[in-house]
């Protein structure tokens, strides 16, 4: 009996891993800057939010995504609300894709992700630049978008594997 309860707790913990990853990634901002790779950066929360909103929308609540956006702004130093807006727009795009897709496949998801982050980043940085008068290095933003786009395929496979392991491959 106690083993079953322990198993349930472990399963519950596994189900909460996307939430934990999101909170840790916005608080920690994995940047790999210490490797001194010039221009290298990618936006892990974008990948995480898009994937889990698309494949298992119940895993990450919109309220939690909104809150993590606010935390991200506080940590990075952007105007409060700008990342929350970006994250929620990503949720909207992925929910739209989920509604119109009958047979999901990685390539379609991947290219739609590319389109999504282009639009969302454009809105985000146009607002920061025009509304809040903060200067931004556009080459860095473009490289960030490119790496985020490329890394989606890798993380998507890792998350697929994790999903099969935890939920038995069923989409919610």
């Amino acid at each position, binding site marked *: 009996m106690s083993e079953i309860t322990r198993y349930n707790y472990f399963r519950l913990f596994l189900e909460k891993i996307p939430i934990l990853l999101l*909170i*840790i990634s916005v*608080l*920690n*901002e*994995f*940047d790999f*800057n*210490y490797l001194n790779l010039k*221009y290298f*950066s990618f936006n892990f929360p974008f990948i995480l939010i898009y994937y889990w909103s698309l494949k298992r*929308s*119940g895993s990450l*609540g*919109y*309220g939690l995504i*909104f809150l993590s*956006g*606010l*935390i991200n702004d*506080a*940590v*990075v*130093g*952007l*105007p*409060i*609300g*700008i990342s*929350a*807006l970006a994250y*929620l*727009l990503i*949720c*909207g*795009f992925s*929910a*739209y894709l*989920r*509604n*119109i897709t009958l047979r999901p496949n990685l390539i379609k998801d991947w290219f739609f992700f590319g389109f999504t982050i282009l639009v969302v980043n454009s809105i985000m940085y146009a*607002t920061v630049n025009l*509304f*809040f008068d*903060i*200067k*931004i*290095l556009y080459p*860095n*933003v473009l*490289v*960030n978008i490119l790496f985020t786009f490329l890394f989606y395929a890798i993380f998507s496979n890792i998350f697929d594997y994790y999903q099969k392991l935890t939920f038995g491959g069923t989409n*919610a």
Partner: protein
Amino acid sequence: MQASSRDDFIIAIRSAFIKKENKQKFSLIALIILTLIILTLGKFNFKIVDYLKVSLKEVAYRSSFVVSIPENLVVKMYNSTKEHFFVYEENARLKEELNNQLSKNYNSEYIISENTRLKEVIDNINYTSDDVLAKVLIDKQSPFLKSIIVNKGSRDDIKLGMAAMDGEYLVGKVVDVSFSTSRVLLLSDLNSKIPVDIIPQNIQSILSGTGESHGTIQYTQEQIFIDEESKVFTSGAGEIFKPGIPIGELEENKDQANLKVKFFSDFSQLRFVILSNYKMEEN
């Protein structure tokens, strides 16, 4: 046919943004509107949003410090391992540098005492400062913003615009103050602009951040030729900082139009900074 596909598009959009989904407590559009309200009120510095910002920052900075501990340990190990590989080369270079500095020190001691004496003679202005030592909590320098969070805030008398120093060197200024934490905008940030003197030519200019690890000199007259290895100090113009705080030196350059400044301090290695509030005192 066209009308049908447009209807499908509208239905999908409505379903994605407006309808509250299963297992979701909030609808997406409600949260987006809330975010837009926060952004707009934040732009116009509404009190409620300011309180929200301050409390959020207090929680986020402390939590971020705790969450970053494992990564910081890995980074520390990585850096110390890297340093071990270059320890012999570094030792030889430092010995040579120490010899040079010792000879310079004797000269500068004499110049400082002479300067103080002359200031007294011409009834000039002296500067005093209130210094606060602060620990760096977060140094996540994102590719877009170069800033650090320190563990001193308004309760420790930290004020906007205070200079942040790494030993004797200027590294940035305080741009945001919360109750127990503050944000220091580093000189390397694209939005940083500091009035400087270039010595020995004694040229006044503006040092601008580039978003990378170096700065750049702006607004000098085209005709003026600036030597390589000239030193950059704060000029004291605009009464932001006291004059003469060392910042960096000009890098070797053939293109006089693009003068790069190598900072004396390594911003990626900041553990503690001194926050200084300079006051002018007339003799």
